[in-house]
């Protein structure tokens, strides 16, 4: 019901205008016309006014700010700001105040002819007389849009009959072929076996096959050789790594806070570790969902189930000291709701933060009802030990506690900290009294999560962790008074060094960021225009009941939301999930807009297949591995990806799937492939993040030198791309060059761009050059010492196939040319291959040049 003068989202504009307009406009006090005297009849007097002046925005087509004036029940209930009609009290009714222009800067309707004084007088009289509205009006009609295909539950269709039955390996193929036959198109032949094993290895584990794997597969004559290969790859521990990455994109995982300070999150990896393990174990997707949405609320929740809620801890944290804490929390909750909306429902729920969704039947009230589930949760950190951590920890703990306490006592921390705390509490109680303490408090609030709550808890009632969080902060930020005492500051520095040393030696338990339910949940409101300071009517936690109802007696908590998401009757979750599996295996979903199944999303290319897969997924107990197996063993998946010129005009996007697609690998897999074929890869699964070498001054791009990039040492440098520390404001360049998402919002599908920066990256990044050198070494070490055999081996390492005669000829020419140059210029050769030392560097150097070419081939970074 806001005036059009104030554009949406102009947060400060309201304030600005209110004060400016007051000084600019003549201060004529709008008068409120007195109610007319006669008896008002709704149909005759009131409804025509509503129709002419209000229904455009508050009628059957749209209900701005949740208000509709074409229906008794809805009109009396009011909008998101609350009731607008108070029967018997016209002057107190917001409807009257707004149409009469009594609120500064606001008048309804905001455009077009306003209500005449007579009309206002009629409305007043109607309200004064009890706002009677003939009973004939019915309850509000159902929302538009709920009959959209994706909002109706999937029904499993019979696979269609096809003519070329021999082509069909499983029901997936029947759906694809039926459509192709209808179009008069024949499917492509099966891809070569080398292509198949490379495709499968990259799709299922994200790693290229080793030459021995290829050889084994090529000589396996059993009829189920392909299925055996699939099963072996599904059982690989690298399966979880490959498929975790897609999930991490949706959760927008990162290893830093984001925003200005962008502090590292040293424990974020623990949730990633959980995801990899869950996928490797083929945890049923319904369970996978329930644990991540609400693992903490499961009866007798295990530590692992609590860790799963770390999904929601990938929201950004703004630690700019001047931040409004309420706003920061609001933004995090918005992020949680939007991420859940994209990930499970494939809906652009986020549009309804500020207003009813323009295209889908999601109201702003719906939005805040979802929001309410997360409003009741708080952030926490828990001990999350990996196997083998607890023993050493428990053995070392008493000694560690004793030593730490001794140190704190020696420096008299208890008394100093008590004074510091007193000053902080004083600053909180009397802002503006001491400016230096004001600032100290502001920083403290931004930097210590739940800091003020701990501050107001008496020390003896704090948990050990809470007390420690405060002490650790105090010792590093002792506040303005102590900072003037040079001697004391010296002492504190000494103490910090000793504590750091003590911590470095202590086998601490891994920690995990989680969500916990708040025992005293706050009230949730609709926030008008999505502005955290403008509360509308109160709402209770509730899922999108127009999509699927929820039992009246269901607890208003995240567990209910989770179970609702994976209910068999939820029309979206299974469809959205199988569509993403399809997307990863064909480069494009059956619904191309995998993030949007709403009315603005693309229609499915094969609706029956999508529904068949969705129901099959649930029938198979939500097993992700079984669904992947089903899809990759289809004839559809096994087709060649070669272009079909005759279909380019008809089906440029390959929606009909008359062939497979040739897909450039995602950023992480390009790194993984280079490391794998060169033999550098450290295949360790799970665990902490790593920081591979990057240009030294890159971290300076971060705010005020707050970003640090301590390069990983030893074999950690060669871990998979999935484990690269993701620093939100200064992401690792290779990831960004190859279209990794920026991790600030949920990403359902990545782009595949083709840019010169990618070329520079692969040609010249020291990480890739190191791989080229290692690949040269490997070829010279492992292949028979003949040029042709070496070339063949190098090719098989990189592309799982031997070179064609033309390729062999061209590379041989290049190799000979390079050998000649290297012999002629030993200095360049030695620079290229310093490991040669005193021996002749020309041959290995020439092979480095060849290796570098192979690692840059389009085919090398492509899954065919």
């Amino acid at each position, binding site marked *: 019901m806001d005036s059009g003068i104030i554009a949406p989202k102009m947060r400060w504009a309201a304030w600005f205008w209110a004060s400016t307009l007051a000084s600019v406009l003549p201060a004529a006090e709008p008068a409120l016309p007195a109610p007319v005297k006669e008896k008002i009849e709704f149909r005759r007097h009131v409804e025509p006014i509503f129709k002419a002046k209000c229904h455009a925005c508050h009628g059957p087509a749209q209900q701005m700010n949740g208000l509709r004036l074409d229906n008794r029940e809805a009109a009396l209930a009011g909008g998101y700001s609350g009731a607008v009609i108070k029967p018997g009290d016209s002057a107190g009714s917001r409807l009257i105040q707004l149409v009469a222009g009594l609120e500064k800067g606001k008048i309804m309707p905001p455009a077009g002819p306003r209500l005449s004084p007579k009309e206002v007088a009629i409305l007043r009289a109607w309200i004064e007389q009890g706002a009677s509205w003939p009973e004939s009006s019915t309850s509000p009609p159902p929302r538009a849009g709920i009959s959209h295909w994706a909002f109706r539950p999937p029904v499993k269709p019979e696979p269609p009959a096809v003519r070329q039955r021999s082509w069909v390996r499983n029901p997936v193929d029947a759906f694809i072929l039926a459509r192709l036959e209808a179009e008069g198109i024949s499917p492509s032949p099966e891809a070569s076996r080398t292509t198949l094993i490379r495709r499968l290895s990259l799709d299922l584990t994200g790693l290229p096959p080793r030459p021995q794997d290829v050889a084994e597969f090529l000589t396996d004559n059993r009829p189920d050789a392909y299925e055996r290969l699939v099963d072996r790859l599904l059982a690989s521990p690298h399966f979880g790594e490959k498929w975790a990455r897609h999930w991490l994109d949706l959760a927008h995982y990162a290893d830093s806070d984001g925003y200005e300070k962008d502090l590292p999150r040293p424990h974020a990896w623990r949730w990633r570790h959980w995801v990899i393990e869950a996928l490797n174990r083929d945890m049923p997707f319904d369970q996978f969902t329930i644990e991540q949405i609400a693992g903490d609320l499961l009866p007798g929740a295990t530590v692992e189930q609590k860790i799963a809620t770390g999904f929601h801890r990938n929201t950004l944290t703004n630690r700019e000291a001047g931040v409004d804490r309420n706003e920061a929390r609001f933004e995090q909750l918005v992020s949680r709701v939007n991420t859940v909306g994209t990930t499970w429902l494939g809906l652009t729920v986020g549009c309804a933060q500020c207003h009813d969704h323009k295209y889908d039947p999601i109201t702003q009230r719906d939005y805040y009802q979802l929001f309410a589930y997360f409003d009741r949760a708080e952030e926490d950190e828990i001990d999350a030990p990996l196997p083998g951590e607890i023993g050493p920890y428990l053995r070392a703990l008493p000694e560690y506690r004793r030593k730490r306490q001794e140190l704190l006592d020696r420096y008299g921390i208890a008394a100093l900290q008590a004074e510091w705390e007193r000053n902080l509490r004083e600053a909180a109680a009397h802002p503006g009294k001491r400016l230096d303490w004001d600032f100290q408090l502001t920083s403290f609030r931004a930097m210590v999560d739940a800091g003020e709550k701990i501050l107001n808890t008496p020390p003896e009632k704090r948990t050990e962790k809470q007390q420690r969080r405060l002490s650790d902060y105090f010792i590093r930020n002792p506040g303005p008074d102590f900072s003037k005492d040079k001697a004391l500051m010296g002492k504190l520095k000494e103490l910090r060094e000793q504590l750091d040393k003590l911590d470095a030696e202590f086998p601490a338990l891994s920690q995990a960021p989680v969500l916990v339910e708040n025992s005293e949940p706050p009230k949730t409101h609709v926030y008008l225009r999505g502005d955290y300071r403008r509360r509308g009517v109160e709402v209770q936690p509730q899922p999108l009941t127009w999509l699927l109802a929820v039992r009246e007696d269901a607890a208003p908590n995240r567990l209910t939301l989770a179970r609702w998401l994976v209910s068999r009757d939820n029309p979206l979750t299974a469809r959205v999930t199988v569509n993403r599996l399809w997307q990863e295996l064909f480069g494009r979903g059956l619904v191309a807009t995998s993030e949007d199944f709403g009315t603005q999303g693309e229609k499915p290319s094969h609706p029956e297949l999508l529904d068949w897969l969705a129901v099959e997924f649930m029938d198979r107990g939500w097993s992700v591995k079984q669904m992947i197996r089903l899809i990759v063993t289809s004839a559809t998946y096994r087709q060649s990806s*070669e272009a079909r010129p005759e279909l380019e005009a008809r089906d440029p996007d390959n929606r009909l799937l008359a062939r497979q697609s040739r897909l450039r690998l995602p950023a992480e897999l390009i790194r993984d492939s280079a490391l794998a074929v060169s033999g550098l890869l450290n295949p360790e699964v799970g665990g902490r993040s790593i920081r591979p070498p990057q240009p030294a001054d890159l971290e300076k791009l971060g705010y005020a030198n707050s970003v640090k990039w301590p390069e990983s040492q030893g074999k950690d440098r060669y871990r998979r791309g999935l484990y690269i520390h993701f620093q939100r404001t200064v992401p690792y360049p290779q990831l960004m060059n190859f279209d990794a998402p920026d991790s600030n919002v949920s990403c359902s599908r990545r782009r595949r761009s083709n840019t010169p920066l990618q070329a520079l990256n692969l040609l010249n990044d020291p990480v890739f050059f190191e791989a080229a050198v290692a690949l040269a070494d490997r070829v010279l070490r492992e292949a028979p010492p003949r040029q042709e055999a070496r070339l063949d081996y190098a090719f098989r390492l990189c592309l799982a196939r031997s070179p064609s005669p033309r390729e062999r000829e061209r590379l041989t020419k290049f190799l000979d040319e390079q050998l000649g140059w290297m012999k002629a210029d030993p200095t360049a050769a030695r*620079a290229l291959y310093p490991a040669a030392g005193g021996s002749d560097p020309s041959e290995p150097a020439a092979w480095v040049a060849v290796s570098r070419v192979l690692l840059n081939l*389009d085919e090398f970074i492509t899954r065919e």
Partner: protein
Amino acid sequence: MTWEEFQRIQTRRSFFRDCACGIGTAAFAHLLGLEGRTLAAILPRDNPLAPRQPHFAPKAKNVIFMFMEGGPSQIDLFDPKPALQKYHGQSLPESMTKDLPLAFIKPTAAVLASPRTFKPAGECGMELSDWLPHLASVADDICLIRSMHTDAFNHHPGQLLLFTGTTQFGRPTLGAWVVYGLGSESQNLPGFVVLTSGVGTSGGATNFSSGFLPSHYQGVLFRSSGDPILYLSNPPGVTRQMQRASLDVLRDLNEERLQATGDVEIASRIAAYELAFRMQMAAPELLDFSDEPTHIREMYGVDKEPTRPFAVNCLLARRLVERGVRFVMLMHASWDDHTELNKKLKKNCDITDRPAAALIKDLKQRGMLDETLVVWGGEFGRTPMAEIRKPEEADNAGRDHHPVAYSMWLAGGGIKGGQVVGKTDELCFKIVEDPIHVHDLQATILHCLGFDHTRLTYRYMGRDFRLTDVSGHVVKKLLA
């Protein structure tokens, strides 16, 4: 090999070498021996960086955006407020400060008068601070806005709003929108280049991200030390000759694969590698200032401190625009002077004032200012009240964030120089004339480039998105 074959190969090679990221002639099909295919099957679907026409005749072709990160103090630089002396040291009445968004200070904070002196500059007589003597010398070329306002009062949200039109993440930035709209004139440099100086910005890479636009439109960071573009230099031991030979064999092998698979993405990849090579060749020449005469180097201050870091970027910006780069963004951080304003602001002025003014003069004398839009400013301004974190220290006072009224300046293509637009009240507390929201600024920048900001859209998640979100008006007063 016959002469025809030789010619064919030569033509093909030079073709790949010369074309930018995409390939745009039907002859290509013939050259690759892929006759008989439809055009759509052969051509990469549009070169994303090909120059494109805007909606209407543009005034400016290029943009140089000098982003002064952190929020420069308009009260000490652009908007003289002698009345502050009257209230210096006093708190403002609650009626004024109620609802004022403040990051750090309390509404009771005392007013801080500016110790700066302001003098009329140029024929237009625009009043500028004594710390901007060089800018004063180009006053008749710039349009000073004293009535900017924004919605966010913290740095990262403020920067997101300034560059993407919203405080939400994931949207494309101004530079990305411009290159998406206009493409690039350069055959061997990226269309959107980012240069940094100072200490790093709150927004980091989100200030030049392509958001949901394809990554071709993302800003490419040119660094001031090391390789200007990441991974531009060959690895140790790889000579230029060797790089060329490697690219030749790579191209031949990729062509083999293109023949075998018919996947046009391979043709794009070949072209991308050739562009990468041309970038390697072009960058050293770009960065080599030896062809700049002494008086130009001195005018910018590239050879001495403290101007050097920013001067190098300003001169580089001109050289980039000369070479067809569409959007150059200079980020200088940080102007976030919560404390010690007098010291820190002076330092930043000493670094940036001379080079920024030199850039205007240089562009003008080369006849480039008419087609280059230059923008200078931060994500918000600073309060008339003092922020004091260490009361015991003299000259500790600074100013807090002030999103409600602040200043920026524009110059060049499409802008009417020598004028001041907008007015604030006597305390620079609020705007009293011509409020200009960041969305209006964005709309006006796009207008100068020939775009109707409501029509420069990109469909994503089922909706047409635009830089100005759902608002923004072109500010006619700013236009020539």
